[in-house]
């Protein structure tokens, strides 16, 4: 069970790394737009292919 003397500091270290990554993410503005990014990924289809679909889906 002596392994616990090493595991606990290890856990803390990993946790601190996690916090540091989070701070970096906030600082670089990744939490500024909570709605845009989620939608943007669905939007980026190549326009050429869609033009072909355009005629039959358009009412």
């Amino acid at each position, binding site marked *: 069970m002596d392994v616990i003397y090493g595991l606990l500091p290890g856990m803390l270290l990993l*946790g601190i790394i996690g916090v540091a990554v989070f701070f970096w993410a906030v600082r670089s503005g990744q939490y500024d737009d909570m709605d*845009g990014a989620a*939608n943007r990924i669905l939007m980026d289809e190549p326009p050429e292919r869609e033009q072909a679909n355009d005629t039959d889906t358009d009412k």
Partner: protein
Amino acid sequence: MSIPCYHCRLPVEKAGSFTAKVAGENHEFCCFGCQTVCETIHNAGLQSFYLKTPEGEHLAPPPSLSAELASYDLDEVQSDYVDKLDDIRSIHLLVEGIHCAACVWLIEHSLAKQQGVISAEVNLTSKRLRLKWDNRLTTLSTLLQALGRIGYAAIPFDPDTAEGALARRHQSLLYRMAFAGFAMMNMLWISIALYSGADQGEFKNWFHWISFLIATPTLLYAGYPFLRNALLGLRRRYLTMDLPIAIGAVTTYGYSTYVTITGSTVGHVYFDTVVNFLFVILVGRYLEAISKREALSATSRLLELQPKLATIMIDGLAKVVPIRTVKIGDLVLVKPGEKIPVDGVLTDGQSAVDESMLTGESLPVVKKNKDQVVAGSINCEGAFTVKVQQVLRNTALAKIVSLMEDAQASKAPIQSTADKIVPWFVVVTLTLAAATFIYWYQFDFEQALLAATSVLIITCPCAFGMATPMSVAVATGVAAHHGILIKQGAALEYLSKVTHFIFDKTGTLTEGKLRVVTVESFSDLSEDTLLMLAGSVEQHSEHGIARAILAESVSRDLTLSPITDFSSSAGQGVEASLNQQHVLLGTQSWLAEFGFVFTDIVLNRVDSLEHQGISCVFMATEGQIVGLIGVADRLRPDAISMINDLQQQGIAITVLSGDKQAVVRAITAELGDIQRQAEVLPKDKADVVRALQKQGVIVAMVGDGVNDAPALIQADVGIALASGTDVSIESADIVLSHNELRKVTEARHLASRTLSTIRQNIVLSISYNIIMVPLAMMGLVNPLIAAVTMPISSLLVIGNAARIKRLFKG
């Protein structure tokens, strides 16, 4: 059934007015703007925008572009917004018209196709665009125009001055919350080990010290705002929710540290409770901050969209400069439709000026040579130049702002319900803890310390601290979706207790726009012919009355004739020739100067109309007065029903206006039996509110003008309309973003719902204490019980707050 516009999906008023062949088919549009935008989008090959737009979403018709776009290319103007004036520049733009993710896609893609654009990133939440471009290849105005062609108006702004401090506070709250979250998660593992028996074994001290190691920075860093505010509050003898939070956290931490250091066998460590508690409270505060920030950024958008530029004349040449560089003695050119940027004397030209925002008067005031004009009023007619007498801080506008600041300083901060209970809470908790200590001290010191601390720990005002912020956060979020922006959470609590509503007239109860209410003929000409003649004569005029007449003739489907020999005299009247007829349209006194005779029948009619608050313009042709057109500022469509609703709830209502007695009387007559005060000066408006408050009445003020601002602040709850002036929006606690008056009653419903939720939450958290405190006094509470019961009480409070969302459903 009308066909929807192919672009914005709003119904097309008149089919066939705007048709265009797009993508091989003919489509109907509601206006020329929509048509051009749609053609541009198709020509750029971005038509899949329409597929991406969610079903049922209405796009706004394209905004009109400011004529001053080119001035944003000037280095002296850009230096306010751009970091560095290099070849590669980046700027923040506020974009009007973004509704959904499809707009984000359209903006980013169409800008990417523009030459010289390096990057364009839209932030959907705050409706902003960060644009980076190469100034050698393109100009900012070209890009703004490109945005305009696809239907978005954009204005540069500086995020640091706009909300720098708020954003930084917000970020530090997020950091603290994240840190507390990290600490809580790690602490949980250790706690589970301790609960499951490790506190008996050889690792006990090791676990305790690790817990201590995690809890110390958490208390100092994540708990810093609470500790600081509690100390500040104590020093100013002002108790806030932060004090019980700080007492709870510090005693729990202190006791656990004592146990850890002495290695006591009787006591337990409660480090996990401290950390959990801080995390949960921070989550509540963060959610509250988010909703508040959204409301604030929506209002700051309303403010920033107003350009802050002026056109000055140097040696006969016009030059656009930022307002702050205008000096006393400069000549400023004011074009029709523009807001006058400075105080000064008119030196050249003449016009009618709309001063309603400052005085509440609904009709424009005539300004001739040497007349004073005031910053913030709007030029309705011809262009003129103004010799600057006062700028910025010294303008009449700024003086009202300073009145406003005085009101702000003299007003006591609003106390939320929880804040009022806090002193009692603190006293009761400390007394109980002391009593417990004294009782147990007769038996054993260690046991006494344990029991007394567990009283403090268990009364840890977790649920209590969340009761208000959670409810306010949910209510603010719900409200924002319904066009009610709540800037001050505490104002929401007050709104439900308001017993007297004061309304401004011009622009608040009324639309603030003149409309034709009657057309009367005194000859054989029909009403429509009269209106057609009037509309033709006025077709090039910017005046409020002219626009009212034009709008009326368009809605009656009249075809206007071309005119010749047009001339106008500001604020008096206009004349022109059409179809070999010379037509004059103007005020009674102006026409009398030309020798036209007003018969008694006409004069009687005018009297009775003016009694109803209707202003008349007369038409004369071929030597006689042929008719009159009555214009008035009409009540907003929902004004009457809102006033009735409020009255049914037993609320007193006063209309307070700077306009003339007759006009105010006419308006209030329509609204039924309410009090009114006319011809009130801006500073007296606040006094009226103050006088009511002295009688112990809780007052809400609803207004839109600069002249309402001091009253908006003085009132317990200030409500402004989004169409109002910057100053009024800034001084209000609540802003109605769609200018709908019925939102006032909705806001009141929401407010009373929120208040009852807050009360329920406080009852919930107090009943939790009533159950748990006796257990703690008996010395029966251990860390496991604390760890289980405290989150449950918080969850109950959060769940109860979330129920506010259901108010507007179904």
